[in-house]
C-alpha cells in the first residue's frame, strides 16, 4: 500500500498517562511500523497544547480528549475524531481520607474545596456535572487548579483541597497510599452507569483536521489500523503484559502503584474503536455546563468519522 505520507507528527498531552496507553502500546509493539508509518510522538504539557499544535499545523494528528472536537466545532475549526481509544473518561472524584466520616455522597461536598487539573478542563467539567446531579451549583464549592501531577498529590496531603477530580496515576497514588477514598469513579462500567447512565463516553480519541483526512485518507487509515491493533491487544492483555511492554520510565517511580493503576485502567480502553451515539450525547451532556457550548448548536455527527474504524474492523 502506498501512503500519501509516511512520516507523521503526532501530538499528545502527557504520553505516560494511562489515558493514552494505546498510543504507547502501538509505538512499543511496532504497530505503526507494520503499517508503514514513521510516527514521531510529541509530548505536550496538556491536551489543549497538543490541540493548538494541531490547529497551528505543527502536528498532523492528536490523541486527545473527544470533547475537543465538540469545542472546535463551536469555534469553527474543522476537526474530527476517527477512532475511539478510551470509552470511559477515567476521571475520579476522590476525597481526603480524614473526611471519610463526613462525606458520604457528592452532596456532602458543599462548602468544600475541590482540586481540578486546571480550571475549565474536563476534570472540572466532571466535578461540575456531579455537583449539579447532586443538586449543588458551582457556587457551593471552590475549585482550585492543582495540576495533574505531584502538585495535585501535595495539595491533598497538605489538606489544601478536600477533594480532587483527577486522573490516574494521581488517583492510584492517593488511594493506594491511603490518603484518599473514591467517591465517583468513571473508570469502571458500574461507575459509568451510576454517573452517566450510559455504557460509554468517548474519552481519548484520535482526531485530526478535516483537510488532513481529505488529503491523506490512506495515512489516516494506517494510523487507525495501528491504534486499533493496540486496542485489540489491550483487550486481552494482563497488567503484567502492559508493564512488560511500556518503557521502563513509566513505572520506575513506583512499580506497584503503576501496576495497580494499569489494572484499574484496563477496562477503560475502547473495545470497538467506535464512538457511539449514546456516547456522543453523554459527552455533550458533560459539557452542558459550559455556557459557550450550551448556547451553541452542535452537530454531533460531524465530530466523528466512522469510515476508518469500519474499514479497520473488516481486515
Amino acid at each position, binding site marked *: 500500500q502506498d501512503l500519501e505520507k509516511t512520516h507523521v507528527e503526532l501530538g499528545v498531552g502527557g504520553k505516560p498517562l494511562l489515558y493514552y496507553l494505546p498510543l504507547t502500546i502501538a509505538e512499543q509493539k511496532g504497530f505503526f511500523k507494520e503499517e508503514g508509518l514513521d510516527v514521531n510522538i510529541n509530548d505536550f504539557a496538556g491536551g*489543549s497544547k497538543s490541540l493548538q499544535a494541531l490547529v497551528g499545523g505543527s502536528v498532523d494528528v492528536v490523541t486527545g480528549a473527544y470533547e475537543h472536537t465538540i*469545542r472546535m466545532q463551536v469555534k469553527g475549526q474543522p476537526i474530527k475524531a476517527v477512532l475511539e481509544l478510551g470509552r470511559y473518561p477515567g476521571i475520579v472524584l476522590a476525597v481526603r481520607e480524614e473526611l471519610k466520616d463526613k462525606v458520604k455522597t457528592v452532596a456532602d461536598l458543599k462548602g468544600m474545596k475541590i482540586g481540578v487539573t486546571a480550571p*475549565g478542563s474536563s476534570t472540572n467539567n466532571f466535578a461540575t456535572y456531579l455537583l449539579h446531579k447532586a443538586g449543588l451549583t458551582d457556587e457551593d464549592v*471552590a475549585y482550585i*487548579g492543582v495540576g495533574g501531577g*505531584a*502538585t495535585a498529590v501535595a495539595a491533598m*496531603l497538605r489538606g489544601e483541597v478536600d477533594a480532587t477530580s483527577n486522573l490516574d496515576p494521581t488517583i492510584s497514588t492517593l488511594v493506594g497510599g491511603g490518603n484518599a477514598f473514591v467517591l465517583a469513579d468513571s473508570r469502571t462500567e458500574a461507575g459509568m452507569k451510576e454517573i452517566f447512565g450510559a455504557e460509554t463516553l468517548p474519552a481519548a480519541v484520535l482526531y485530526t483536521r478535516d483537510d488532513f483526512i481529505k488529503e491523506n485518507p490512506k495515512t489516516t487509515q494506517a494510523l487507525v489500523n495501528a491504534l486499533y491493533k493496540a486496542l485489540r491487544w489491550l483487550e486481552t492483555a494482563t497488567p503484567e503484559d502492559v508493564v512488560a511492554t511500556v518503557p521502563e520510565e513509566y513505572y520506575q517511580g513506583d512499580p506497584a502503584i503503576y501496576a495497580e493503576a494499569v489494572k484499574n485502567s484496563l477496562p477503560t480502553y475502547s473495545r470497538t474503536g467506535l464512538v457511539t451515539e449514546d456516547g456522543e450525547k453523554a459527552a455533550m451532556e458533560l459539557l452542558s455546563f459550559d455556557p459557550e457550548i450550551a448556547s451553541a448548536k452542535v452537530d454531533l455527527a460531524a465530530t466523528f468519522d466512522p469510515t476508518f474504524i469500519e474499514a479497520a474492523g473488516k481486515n
Partner: protein
Amino acid sequence: MNRRTILLLQILVGLGFFVIWHFGTTVPMPNGKPLINPFFFSTPLDVLARTWKDFASGVIWRHLYVTALEMVLAFIIGSVLGIVVGFWFARRALTAAVFDPYVKAANALPRVVLAPIFALWFGLGIWSKVALGVTLVFFVVFFNVYQGVKEVSPTVLANARMLGMNNRQLLRHVYMPSAMSWVFSSLHTSVGFALVGAVVGEYLGSSAGLGYRIAQAEGVFDVTGVFSGMLVLTAFVILVDLMVSAVERRLLVWRPSAPTSTAQG
C-alpha cells in the same frame, strides 16, 4: 525630542501594532484566510472589548489584586534578598568562591519543574507564587549587585577606607551608591520576572489571579481571554516600571546628565 513628541510616538507605535494586528486577523488574504490566524491571536477589537467588559463588570479586580500582590511581594523579597546576598558575597571572597557554582546551578533549575515543590512547601496560596517569582528576581539582582560592588572605583574605595570607614559604613556610603545603577538596571528586568513568576505560578495551580484566568481561558481555547489577560499584565508592569524609574531618577541625581555638557576637562 521633548516629552510630548515621545509620548506621541509611543502612542503611534502602539497604534501601529494594533492596526497590523487588526488587519492581519480580519482581512482575508487571496487564499481566503487572514494572514494571522485569529484562533491563535484573536483580534484586537475582541480583546479590547473583553478587557473593557472584565473591568466594567469588576470580575478582574480580585484577580488583578492577587497577582499584583504576588508580584510586588516577589519583587520586594527577591530584590532585597538579591541585594543583601549580593553585597554579602561581594564582601566575602571566600564565601563567594565556595558557593559560586551552587548559585549558578540554582539559577539554572527550571522553575516550572520546581512548582510542585513550592506548592508542597508554601501551599497553593499566594506564597508558592511569590516563591516562584523570588527565584527569578533574586538571581538577576544578585548577579548585578555582586558585579556592581566589584566595579567600585579603587581610588574612591581607598579614600573611603582612609577616612576610617568600617565595613558597614563602606557598604552604606561607597558600595551601595556605587552599585546603584547596577541595581536599577537589574530591577527593570526583575519587575518583569516577578510578574512572570506570579503568573506562571498561578497558571500551574491556583484559584485566583491573572494567571489563573489565562489558564482557564486557555483550557477552553478562549484566545481572546488569554490575550486580554496578557494586555492587563502588560499595562500593569509598565505602571510598576514607571515607579521604579521615578525612584531611580531621584536616587541617581549625582550623575552627569547630558553627555555633551559635562565633559569636564
